[in-house]
């Protein structure tokens, strides 16, 4: 609404600016009166109400003044085209940044400022990076809006937990099975939604995510319901557990390497496991994108009718996108289960799907590095905001709005062709 009324550059139109500011202040007033204006308090064990209209007045005045300042600053600055895709990095810089990121990730646990907390946080980031890359296949490449991606994450986590519980499978044995199971769930979701697109697809996938969560919550004999599954085994290092003691006949990691046991070792190990999984996911998805299947996904996103006219079967292409995306989600889920040691349906709510989708969209649909950046922003921002207590979600929301204003097509909106006829021009424009 502000853009449409943007005055020509280098002149301040005070009248329209005042009008806009008044409007913004009015909106702020309507919002602030119920949200800020009243506070419930305890008056002798009875619910009472206190008004805080002073705060409301300060807030509304702040919005009014802020809008004027912002508008004036904008009209005095040289005009800029909003929504135009600007690149954060050129092609060569992207390669450089990716290499630097991998080296940094490999060295992270050994850096001087590193701590257990930081490595643990990085592990969480990498789980979301994996999930983001998996969902990117479905949303970014194939253009199928999936709001229930967390279902596959949950299938992966629960299948590993249950395999471990019932069949005594280790993490490494159960990992491919978890991926396969999640992929078959992806196909199961894919069939009924073959004819759907856009909003309708989003609604059905949203429902699918909820169904999976509700089944996990209510199928108590199998999933233990809301109590979840605990004592999920940790991954071992080539059969050597990372524990202080091991049952007879098994050497622990610390005993084998003759180092004293330290719980940090396990955290570091988990970090490297997820880093390896993430790198494999990255190579896998990057390669797929350059194969006929990847190009068919993108073609499907661009125009399904043209795909059919070229002899491409949209059914198999869609199902393969769902299956591959789900499989990658399943891997991430299995890792999540082994890392937490405990899972319950609470970890797989809609907000997780929304976060993963936000990572893909903020990263710039289709961009691998963008997903990493967005995952770092979305996962660490709430963490670093902990000091701000209840205001951290406010900060989070503001950051998301900021990204959408300044980078409406995502942090790294740029599509690299899957193949080229001519070598790219230097400088990577």
């Amino acid at each position, binding site marked *: 609404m502000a853009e449409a009324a943007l005055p020509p550059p280098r002149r301040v139109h005070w009248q329209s600016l005042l009008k806009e500011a008044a409007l913004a202040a009015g909106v702020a007033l309507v919002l602030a009166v119920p949200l800020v204006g009243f506070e419930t308090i305890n008056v002798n064990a009875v619910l009472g109400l206190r008004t805080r209209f002073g705060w409301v007045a300060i807030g509304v005045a702040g919005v009014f003044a802020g809008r004027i300042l912002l508008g004036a600053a904008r009209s005095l600055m040289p005009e800029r085209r909003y929504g135009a895709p600007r690149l954060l990095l050129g092609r060569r810089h992207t390669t450089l940044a990716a290499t630097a990121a991998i080296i940094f990730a490999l060295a992270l646990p050994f850096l001087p400022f590193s701590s257990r907390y930081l490595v643990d946080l990085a592990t969480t980031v990498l789980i979301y990076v994996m999930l983001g890359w998996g969902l990117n296949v479905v949303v970014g490449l194939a253009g199928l809006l999936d709001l229930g991606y967390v279902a596959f994450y949950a299938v992966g986590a629960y299948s590993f937990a249950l395999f471990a519980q019932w069949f005594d499978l280790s993490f490494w044995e159960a990992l491919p099975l978890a991926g396969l199971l999640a992929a078959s769930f992806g196909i199961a979701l894919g069939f009924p939604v073959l004819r759907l697109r856009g909003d309708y697809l989003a609604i059905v996938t949203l429902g699918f995510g909820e169904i999976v969560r509700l089944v996990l919550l209510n199928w108590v004999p199998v999933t233990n319901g809301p109590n979840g599954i605990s004592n999920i085994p940790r991954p071992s290092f080539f059969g050597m557990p990372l524990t202080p003691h091991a049952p007879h006949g098994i050497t622990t990691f610390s005993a084998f390497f003759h180092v004293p046991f330290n719980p940090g070792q396990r955290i570091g190990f988990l970090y490297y496991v997820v880093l390896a999984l993430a790198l494999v996911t990255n190579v896998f998805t990057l390669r797929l994108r350059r194969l*006929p299947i990847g190009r068919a996904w993108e073609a499907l996103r661009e125009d399904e009718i043209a795909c059919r006219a070229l002899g491409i079967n949209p059914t198999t292409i869609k199902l393969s996108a769902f299956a591959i995306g789900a499989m990658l989600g399943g891997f991430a889920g299995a890792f999540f289960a082994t890392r937490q040691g405990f899972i319950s349906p609470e970890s797989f709510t809609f907000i997780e799907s929304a976060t993963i989708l936000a990572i893909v969209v903020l990263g710039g649909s289709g961009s691998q590095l963008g997903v990493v950046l967005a995952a770092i922003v979305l996962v660490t921002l709430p963490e670093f905001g902990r000091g701000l207590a209840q205001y951290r979600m406010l900060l989070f929301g503001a950051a998301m709005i900021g990204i959408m204003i300044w980078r409406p097509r995502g942090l790294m909106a740029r599509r690299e062709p899957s193949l080229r006829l001519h070598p790219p021009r230097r400088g990577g424009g």
Partner: protein
Amino acid sequence: MSGALLEVEHLSMRFGGLVAVDDLSFTARDREITAIIGPNGAGKTTVFNCLTGFYRPGIGRLSLHRGERRFLLERMDGFRIARDAGVARTFQNIRLFAGMTVLENLVVAQHQKLMRASLWSVGGLLGLPLYRRAEAEAMERARHWLDRVGLVERADEAAESLPYGAQRRLEIARALCTDPVLLCLDEPAAGLNPRESAELNELLLSVRAELGIGVLLIEHDMTVVMGISDHIIVLDYGRKIAEGKPDAVRRDPAVIKAYLGEEESEALPPEIARDLEHRS
């Protein structure tokens, strides 16, 4: 003499009470350009949509001969018609993969071949030489057609960034990359300037000569239709009102009536008038 490539027999298609195509029969031959013309709403695009599997005709048989095999198009899925029977088409309102590059558009059209060469992605993931060779071939083929439509220089640009005429040419090149036996073009000259139309004529004639395929053409631009067609079918209100060589069709009173709404007229439609002038 060329053989029958496509035989349409008693094709009818109705949408509710509207009869879009009414008992239409015609034959399109190998190495011939067959044009379907008619006033707006005559059912031309409906015929195309029946041929390419986007509509399922109520009545009629559509048989396509590819080598020794015969395909009954009215029973096939759209993607199979393109993949197995070898019918490629373009669209009235261009349908390119807009965000992908020009080259990628042409490589996607060779999906089936590449998919097989990549062993359904497994071999491709492992980087087997079989797939690499197939990809190089696909790019060579794409380069060939890009060369023919004059787009080699712009191969790595997004398809949506091309000017309108180039997008039309790219769509034709993409259809040709599928290795068709019958190429169906839905108004390929719409929105082209006279020079581009002339280039299109040349392209279609050379494609027909070189590949020996049949071309089925819907077109309003009479310089294109009269200039290159071997056979013309005229539709009006879903019915075939005339058929034959360009010269015969142009003089057919039923055709003139369909275009003008009366039998005797001083004012021919501009495109026909211009064309008559041009030829006499």
